[in-house]
Structure formats: C-alpha cells, structure tokens
C-alpha cells in the first residue's frame, strides 16, 4: 500500500527532519507511529498522504512512485487515503453533515446518493443529534469524531490519523481507538500518530518509533 525506501526530508536548507526512513504499510494492517514531540511524525504523515515531497528516497503509494505522479493522479490517489488531522480542519461555515459529506461531494456524487450513508455514519460516531451544528459550537471530542467520520465516509483503503486523541479525555480517547480498530477489522489499513504511550500499551500492535528523524519498527 504505502512503501518508504531510504526516504529523507529536509525543509529548505535546514537539517534533515527525516533520515533514511524505510517501512511498508501493508493492506489491512494496524500500526502506531510514535515518538517525542518534534520527532517528525506529522511530516511523515504528510509524506504519506502526498501533501509534501521527499528530499530523497523512494515513496510508492498503491504501487505508484510518487515522484512520477501527475497532478491529477496525485489527486485521485488522495481519495483512497483518509486523513484525520490533529487540528480537525473542519470547514467552519459548513454544518457537521456537510463537512462529513464533503469528500463525496468533491467526487461529484449527488446528495441523494450519499444522504443515508452520511447520516448513518454520523449516528455511528455518536453525532446523530449534531448533524446541523456548525463546527464552532462543537466540543473538541465532537469535532474529532466529525473529522474521523469525514475521513471514513469515502471508505478509504488507508486511514492516517495525526494525534486523533490529542484533544480529548482518556475515556473518549480509548473509544476513538476502538473505533479505529473496528475500521481495521473491516479492511482499512490504519496508521495512528500518537505520543500517548499508555494508550498504545492497551493495544498489541505494530509500532513505528521515530527518534531524531530515524525510524525503528517494533512488530
């Protein structure tokens, strides 16, 4: 699905933030990406969903070398990847329903074709009574669940979550991780970036550990 081979990343002329990173995200796999703050987790996530380009090395996503992708192909590959941002990135002028439906709307689908799916997903993540609410009035946990629902609505093959439990209390954090586990069981590969060791210890999963830009893999 996603393969990194000796990937390095540098911003401008500064030092490399990622050095010789190599790993493989397999289909239906579940892993945590961890490391101290500033280790490069977000940069690695951004490389995985093609938001930035590597300075060196090879990245292939769905068996396609990302350095040779056309703009259109890059955009179509992104549709197969769901992303949950640390800062949610919900559009404040759209309702919860419209935010979650956005990935389907940009694919040109008619509202009548996805209305039921969006509503059911919102019910599943516990936002059934907040469908028409605007993001500014949602709590941190509700925003996070809306962001997760948006990432899941188009049934991505890979889900990347950057600190999805960073803004919620521990009970909700555990519920959200269980939600990701459910998703993984239904066939989606999941990568969760987090520095919450206690949370990771609750789940026996592969760990990708970033330290000073270098990656260690603990299966």
């Amino acid at each position, binding site marked *: 699905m996603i393969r990194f081979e000796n990937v390095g990343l540098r911003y401008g002329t500064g030092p490399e933030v990622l050095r010789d990173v190599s790993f493989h995200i397999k289909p239906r796999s579940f892993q945590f990406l961890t490391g101290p703050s500033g280790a490069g987790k977000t940069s690695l996530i951004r490389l995985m969903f093609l938001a930035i380009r590597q300075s060196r090395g090879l990245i292939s996503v769905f068996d396609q070398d990302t350095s040779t992708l056309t703009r259109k192909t890059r*955009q*179509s*590959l*992104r549709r197969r990847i769901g992303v949950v941002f640390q800062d949610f*990135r919900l559009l404040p002028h759209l309702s919860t329903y*419209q935010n979650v439906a956005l990935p389907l709307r*940009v694919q040109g689908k008619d509202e*009548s074709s996805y209305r039921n799916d969006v509503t059911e997903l919102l019910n599943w993540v516990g936002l059934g009574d907040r*469908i028409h609410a605007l993001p500014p009035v949602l709590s941190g946990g509700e925003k996070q669940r809306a962001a997760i629902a*948006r990432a899941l609505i188009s049934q991505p093959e890979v889900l990347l979550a950057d600190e999805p439990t960073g803004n919620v209390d521990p009970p909700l954090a555990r519920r959200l991780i269980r939600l990701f586990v459910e998703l993984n069981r239904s066939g989606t590969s999941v990568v969760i970036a987090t520095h919450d060791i206690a949370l990771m210890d609750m789940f026996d999963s592969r760990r990708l550990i970033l330290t000073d830009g270098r990656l260690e893999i603990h299966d």
Partner: protein
Amino acid sequence: MKYPRHAPPSSIVPPQSIAGRALVLVVTIMTLLACLTYGAVTLVYDAARDWQSDIATEMTVQIRPAEGLDLPAEIEKVRKAVAAVPGIASVAAMDDRSTLSLLEPWLGGNIDINDLPVPRLLVLTVGERDKLDMNRLRNVLKETSSHAWLDDHSTWTARLRGMANTLIVAGILVLLLVLGAMVLAIVFATRAAMAGNREVVDVLHFIGAEDRFIAGEFQKHFLGMGLKGGFAGGVLAVVLFAALSLLAGSFGSSGDTLDLMFGGFSIGLGAYIGVAILVLVVAALTALTSRIAVQTYLE
C-alpha cells in the same frame, strides 16, 4: 432506512465577506461605466445615422449672379432642367426673403439683396436614391448653366461620418478599458480570496478534490458576484438614461437643440438589449477570469 433531506448544500467557498461586497461594488461601477459608454456610442451612432440620412435627402444648387445675367430666368432654367433628372422628387427656389434671413446673423436685417452678389439657392429633394445618377445631375447642371454649382453636402457628410466613427472607436476603446480594468480587479480579488481561503483549498486538496472542482467552486462564487454587480450596474445605467431623458426634456429650447443634435436621450429597445448583453458579458467575464486565476494559482 431513508433519512429526510437536509438543507441544500452550502457553498464550499465561505459566503460574502467585506472583500466580496467591495468586489460586487467594483463590478457594479464597471458595468455602469460600460453601459454608459455603450449608450453614448449608440447615441452618437444613431444621431450620425439620422443626420446622414437627413442630409442625404437634400442637396442645394447655388446660382451665382453675374454682370448682365438675368438671374430670375437663369434660376427658372436650372430649376426645370434639374427637376427632370430621374431621382429628384422636387426642386424649390428659395425666395429673396428666405435667402436674406440666412444672412441676417452676419449682415443684419436692413440690406437689399440686389446690392450684394448673393448666390440664389435651389433646394433639391431626393426621391428615390437608387434612381439618382449624380454624374448625370452634374452634367445636366453644367450644360444648363455655367453659373450654377451643386452642393451635395458630401463634404459635410464625410466630416460627420469621420467624427462619428472617431467617437465610436473612442467609445469602444473606453469600453475595452473599462472591461480590462474590471478583469484586473477580479484577478486581484480572486487571488485575495484564494489566499484568504487557503484553509478551505488545503482541505479540498487533502480530500482529493481535483483542481477543476476547486476552480469550479470559486467560479460559481464569483459568477454570483458578477451577476449581482452586473445587474445592479445595468439597472443604474437604465435609470440614469431615463433620468437624463427627462432632464433633457425640461431644458426648454436648449433641450430642443439637444434633441436636434442627438435625437434625444430616449433609450430604445436596442439599447436595453445591449445593456442586458453587457450585464451577461460582465458576469461571464467575472466567472471566466476567476476560474483562470484560480487554476493559475493552484498550479
């Protein structure tokens, strides 16, 4: 289970901001200027066409007095000869009193026409233009009298046409300048909107939206603004023309002179249609410019 329909999808581009209202105002003003320019150009064009048509229906023959020439007999001879030329509907000799009244602004009222070598005028009214052979008319005149000279007003017509064409070309240039300025304003506004909505554009990219979808959303947004501004500008232009038309009518004799020169400020159906077309052109130009600006920005 079927769920009820929710509210219609909102625009992905955030609704009207202060910058958006300012752009609508810019488009309104530009549309107004464009419509006024168009109106002025059509006014000049219609007036020039009416003048040319009026001038083209009349010609004059001047008969110069000479030593020993029987002027009244000469006038009658020329009148009969010219009246027989096909295409000439009528020939009328201007009497002495009418001739003197033409000279009154320069020479005053108390003059004897016989004391001055004043040419006498024959006014020719053209009937069927396509039957009139100007060469034949000149030849007839030449053969009939060596003291007669034909003024077909071609000099005036040419000058009038030249002036009208110059004004029309100037009007078109002004129109293009106005539309060009509007396009530039839209380009800047689009770039500002893109920069101000960077978060929206980023999120759209991350969820896999293609550039043409993003450009389409901004285009819809700016088309709405273009239609609002264009419609407001068009309505203002029509109201202004109607007001000018009323004002011109209340100027008394000055208004009559204006009517004589410009055929009045009344706006005909053609001008309304032109204003409507301009409004649509402005809206389309707004949408197209913003789409191109967005696509350039995204690339």
